[in-house]
């Protein structure tokens, strides 16, 4: 099989587009179609989904015939840490307030970059948490929970 594929990266991209298109058709299967004169909610998405499937299919076919780029290596570590830090931020924000959320986010995301000392991480976290307080709480007066309940403001 491997010999068949000339552009693995494009093959995967094409397959992704086809899958999204098919999923759209399946999820939107009961959206009313309507007519050209008076279109229902399902008309336009269906046209677009079919277009996406067609384009995806062409990309898949081309990847079997035309030499192209290999798959790129994913940097899973940084990805998980960066996205994870935002999830942590979101989870903490309405439970423990902005300060805790920002500090935790900075610490988690800091580990995405290798070779950083713990001292530096803490310094950056403190500095950015202070900055966030200055800009968003003091400066813009954002209506947001700042400290954990029962502590400070």
């Amino acid at each position, binding site marked *: 099989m491997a010999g068949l594929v000339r552009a693995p990266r*494009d093959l995967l991209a094409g397959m992704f587009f086809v899958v999204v298109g098919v999923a759209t058709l399946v999820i939107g299967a009961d959206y009313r179609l309507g007519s*050209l*004169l008076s279109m229902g*909610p399902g008309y336009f998405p269906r046209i677009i989904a079919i277009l*996406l499937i067609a384009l995806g299919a062409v990309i898949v076919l081309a990847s079997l015939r035309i030499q192209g780029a290999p798959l790129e290596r994913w940097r899973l570590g*940084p*990805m998980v840490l960066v996205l994870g830090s*935002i999830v942590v*931020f979101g989870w903490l924000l309405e439970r423990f307030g902005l300060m805790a959320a920002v500090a935790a986010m900075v610490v988690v*995301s800091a580990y995405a970059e290798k070779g950083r000392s713990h001292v530096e991480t803490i310094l950056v976290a403190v500095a950015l948490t202070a900055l966030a307080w200055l800009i968003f709480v003091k400066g813009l007066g954002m209506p947001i929970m700042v400290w954990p309940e029962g502590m400070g403001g």
Partner: protein
Amino acid sequence: MDLLSNLALGFQVALTLDNLLYCFGGVVLGTLIGVLPGIGPVATISMLLPFTFHLPPTSALIMLAGIYYGAQYGGSTSAILVNLPGEASSVVTCLDGYAMARDGRAGHALGIAAIGSFFAGCVATLILAALAPPLAELAFQFGAAEYFSLMVLGLVAAVVLAQGSLLKALAMIVLGILLGTVGMDTTTGDQRFTFGMPELSDGLGFVVVAMGMFGFAGIIANFDTPEARDVLRTKIGSLLPGMKEIRQASGAILRGTGIGSLLGVLPGGGAMLGSFASYMMEKRLAKDPSRFGKGAIEGVAGPESANNAGAQTSFVPMLTLGLPTNPVMALMIGAMTIQGIQPGPQVMTRQPDLFWGMIASMWVGNLMLVLLNLPLVGLWVRLLSVRYRILYPAILLFCAIGVYSLNSSVVEVFLAVGFGFLGYALIKLGCEPAPLLLALVLGPMLEDNFRRALTISRGDPMVFITRPLSGVLLLLAAVLLLIVIAPNVRKARDQAFQE
């Protein structure tokens, strides 16, 4: 005469203390992110967008516009001194700018880039002021079919600009349109693809997607390319080029301004295309093309004038037709909508102070940029030594708080994380996110006009072809598509992107 009184009104607005400050803030921030590689105007503007809600609309737009054209000035600084394009539109400036710097003429390169940019900025402001009223007039004649066809043309043009595979760029556009259908169907009120989430019934937030795909995904992707920054140790030298160099560069500045202004107005245009086109043109026109790449001053003057001109004239379709031609303009539309302003030709008549104030502010901003960039260039260079490892947590912070503050919704923060993942995956698959973003904004307008045109024509799909203006626009789109698919043009395009 009208032009003068309009501009006078504009300057009255732009020269108030508040607006001067916001303009200054915008261009300083623009220069900053222009100098720094790894963060561009799209990410910055989407980061700030939620906070502009608290500003008066005119000040908000003046500041956001300043970020965009300010980035064009800043981008040349890192291109010339460090051989790193701070912005995509400064890629070609690296070629001759860095060569000049190695030659000990860094100051001259910086000087001519600023002079060219300023000249281009002045001309582009005038073009914008002169072209906007007639275009807005024309826009009132546009029916649904024309709008639909114009958007199709714009989206096709955006494909031409995307780097890499055309097919994948087309698919990204279609995917963007599809994402635009999420939410309540405006005509029938039905919920589509919301999965029962109330947060989605107003549609996918543009800022949420932009932040995920440009902010978060961009940061992750930056870890793939190791940081390499060798700030040039040689002295910058005199900033004012000699008479001979100015004479050499003046033609390039004029041509760059022309081609940049023209390509900026066109759908799909913006700063980047102009700079590439100008570089190719200068190389072709030169008596001795072999000088290029070895420190030809025209190779700096032309593209730097062109990208600034293009950045400014790309406001023309946004302000007059309410149609964004590139992701930055899509964000400007977003900024207007947040402020409750319906973008379109009526902005000029209903909010003349906003319209002309913004145009006048561009000239003011350009003046500030020259004053900021030339004497303070040393300061900007020092900024380059700020490590990305310090910078990215700060970017994350602004993104995260920005997404949340939009609707005080944690769900939208998690959605942005999802788009961060999607964006990174797509980057890894060689699919550029910019066309998707543009299509996401245009998608709902596209659908709306599509449906309206067909209702008006009693369901006759030929309406898009039989209405002359609409037919011509679609024909243009088809021709454009055929041209870029043609093998030899493709090769030239790939070459241009590689240079």
